[in-house]
């Protein structure tokens, strides 16, 4: 497995040399959504606290670094962290309210959706950040402003983000923090009885997750150069974030990456074929069907299933 991972990494590092610009773009989306999925995975996958409002963190991170860059000239390399921190503040608020008031399952989902929607509506009605018109960043190509002439730089940045998040998740999994999160997902009361401060660990998971997602917001802003409240805070983005780890295998290190390699190209393809005019909803229909299929037939996600297959085919 280790050799396989190293080989895959090497291929990904060398790939931009042979890919055309469009294929590079597809890979950027794969890495970026894998990164967001990985961030979600900490709280949604490992701790089992289903957040369907992670777009809020992307949005806060994106608007923060974009406004800081445009208004104050602050480099997004720092704005990224500021955005992450602000997202973590929101994550703390949502987590505190949700966990302190004991909202579980469905109620927690509703809480996260409600917060994301509140953020969207506030952004929509705040003229200082462009309101409904959106917020735009002028392209200068200045790397210090997180802007690159060459698409391949974004490729490496996105790859880096994905690897960092994956490293963090792998590290969490190997430590007490991860063991506790998994146990919390399985049975919270039993955890409490075994001396696990479930509130504290769920909060930590939420904070780390929202921070990373907020950092991702900066990439979103400076890759697309325009922010629309409906797309950056909207439920569709939250669904994009949630669906990859779930399809790939929530609560596994490889799940979000696998999920993104499966789904991002699919989403891209359906955008090309159905993206125009009357068919704009088609790829979300496909997501819906896929979600239903995964729940019914592959509730653990694709990665655990693949792993079982691998172990069966390659016995040692």
């Amino acid at each position, binding site marked *: 497995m280790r050799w396989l991972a190293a080989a895959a990494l090497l291929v990904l590092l060398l790939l931009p040399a042979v890919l055309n610009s469009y294929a590079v773009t597809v890979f950027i989306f794969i890495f970026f959504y894998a990164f967001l999925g990985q961030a979600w995975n900490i709280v949604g996958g490992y701790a*089992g606290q*289903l957040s*369907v409002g992670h777009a809020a963190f992307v949005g806060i991170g994106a608007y923060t670094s974009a406004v800081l860059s445009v208004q104050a000239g602050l480099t997004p390399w720092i704005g990224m962290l500021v955005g992450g921190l602000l997202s973590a503040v929101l994550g703390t608020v949502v987590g505190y*309210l949700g966990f302190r*008031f*004991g*909202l*579980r*399952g*469905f*109620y927690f*989902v*509703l*809480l996260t*959706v*409600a*917060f994301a*929607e*509140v953020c969207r*509506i*506030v952004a*929509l*009605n705040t003229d200082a950040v462009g309101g409904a018109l959106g917020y735009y960043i002028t392209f200068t190509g200045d790397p210090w402003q997180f802007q690159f002439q060459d698409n391949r730089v974004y490729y490496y940045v996105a790859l880096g983000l994905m690897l960092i998040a994956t490293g963090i998740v792998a590290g969490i999994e190997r430590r007490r923090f991860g063991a506790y999160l998994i146990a919390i997902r399985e049975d919270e009361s039993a955890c409490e009885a075994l001396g696990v401060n479930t509130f504290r660990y769920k909060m930590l998971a939420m904070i780390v997750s929202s921070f990373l997602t907020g950092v991702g917001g900066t990439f979103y802003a400076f890759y697309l150069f325009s922010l629309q409240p409906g797309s950056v805070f909207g*439920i569709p983005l939250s*669904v994009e974030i949630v669906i990859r780890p*779930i399809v790939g295998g929530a609560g596994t290190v490889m799940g979000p990456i696998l999920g993104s390699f499966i789904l991002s190209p699919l989403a891209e393809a359906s955008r090309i074929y159905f993206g125009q005019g*009357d*068919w*704009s*909803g*088609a790829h*979300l*229909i496909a*997501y*819906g*069907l*896929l*979600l*239903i299929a*995964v*729940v*019914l037939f592959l*509730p653990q996600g694709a990665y655990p299933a693949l792993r079982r297959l691998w172990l069966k085919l390659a016995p040692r």
Partner: protein
Amino acid sequence: MAVGLTLIFGVMRVVNFAHGDMMVWGMYLAWILSTRAGIDPYVGFIACAGALFVMGWVTQRLLVDRIVDAPHEMQILLMLGVALVLENAALVAFGPDPQRVRSPLRAATFWLGPVFVDVARLVTFALAMVLTLALYLFLTRTDLGRTMRAAADNAYGALVIGTDVRRVYAAAFGIGAACVGAAGALVSPILPFHPAGGLSLSVASFNIVIIGGMGSLPGAFLGGLLVSVAESLGAVFLSPSMKELVSFSLLIAILLFRPAGLFGKTAA
């Protein structure tokens, strides 16, 4: 429409995320009937209820049934999937522009003493009342209705005494969806609708149901009144665009402070 949600949740403890989207479908069906066949929505609502009953029944039998015993998270994800499919199927089929069903009653208004009465609203309200009452009688007076309430209290117990719980669930889901379809058709002359509107309808009905208490019919009804009052007050004092904000803030407040509702049984 909250009545439909509370029935589904109350009986099966399955949360229907697709609720608002089902309502949107009810509205579009009323629109089709009215534009293609010239059937007034105040008559067509019966057909809409029938169609949605089938939709609910099938959803239950084909999908939810397989995972009734699975963790709650799985059900949430499943219904999220159904909601995505329904919403975007409506988008593909009908386009993103808002629609409104024309009814001859729409133009009719009269003064009742000092009060200005809009006949369409009056008829909608009256029919909604009748439907709620009918559902209430169905649940308390008929065998199937009583069985549903029994299954809601204790699915295992109902199974032991020989109830076909799966059939009861499917009926509950179907009737819940039918209520939503009827409600959608009934408000279609009053409320403009578009495919993306499902979510805010869902949120409105969650507000109503959670305030009233999950699984309580009178609760859902009173909750409906409370929420509409709160939202109209919000619309008066804030700009109309902030009305949505009010309903989401309301949802957050409700979630935090009244998880079991004003009339519901306390959550386990």
